[in-house]
């Protein structure tokens, strides 16, 4: 087993892990009770999944074709820049339009603050 074969294997392993992680996040999306907890499953677990997939592709091209793909790395950077902004805005908009938290929820420190602002 030479170096390029090992690289191929590692890349494939990363992509497989990323795929498994996406499947689990979709399962979480279907299963969790409300918007807020779903956003955890949807936006967050998928950041790691995307990271693993792109990294796997990067390692694969690097080891087999000796080609350092800057575009894949830039893809990771931009996913990591945009995903949290989208997640934050979705959750914030949901809360501001009075979407209820799930019944199992515990503390809610934000409710009083926003309510006071409205008065």
């Amino acid at each position, binding site marked *: 087993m030479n170096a390029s074969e090992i690289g191929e294997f590692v890349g494939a392993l990363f992509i497989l892990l990323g795929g498994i*992680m996406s499947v*689990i*996040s979709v*399962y*979480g999306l279907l*299963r*969790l*009770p*409300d918007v*807020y*907890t779903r*956003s*955890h*499953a949807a*936006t*967050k*677990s998928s*950041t*790691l999944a995307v990271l693993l997939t792109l990294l796997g592709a990067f390692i694969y091209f690097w080891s087999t074709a000796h080609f350092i793909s800057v575009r894949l790395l830039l893809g990771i950077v931009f996913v*990591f*820049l945009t*995903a*949290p*902004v989208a*997640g*934050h805005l979705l*959750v*914030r908009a949901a*809360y501001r339009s009075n979407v209820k*938290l*799930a019944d*199992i*929820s*515990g*503390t*809610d*420190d*934000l*409710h009083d*603050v*926003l309510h006071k602002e409205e008065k």
Partner: protein
Amino acid sequence: MLAQLLLNIVIAFLWMLLIDEDEIILTTFFAGFLVGIGVIFLMHRFFGTRFYLRRVYATFKLLLIFIWELIQSSVLVLKQILSPKLKIQPGIFRHETVLRSDLEITMISLLLTLTPGSVVMEVSPEGNVLYVHAMDVESERGAILSQLKNFEKAIMEVTR
């Protein structure tokens, strides 16, 4: 900080010109850059600021801490999703941050939102209170708080 980096590049450029080769060779530039790092390390106290590579090092450390937290909390969230009975108690808690400037607040919200299990829902208008929605508040409070402290410390090393 920026002045030090600029000076370093100037030193590298001068080094390349003074070696006076027939063509521009990148390795000569990097040799000059290394020399520049040495010179600036000896001289940096005259700038009145910290050595700029220390900030680069702090950024690198922040990145490593972030990746570690990302993996840890991803595993946690995946475990919670896959557990046969949902035993979570999501909730919103408020956290007063010690960070002050806009850049620092943006960085901590970005990092917190990126790590699974916590989303920043609101930032107070003054910018010193974060409202964080967490997947499992009661049993994970300690873990989330220690994660917050970790990030705050690492960010402060970068920006101050």
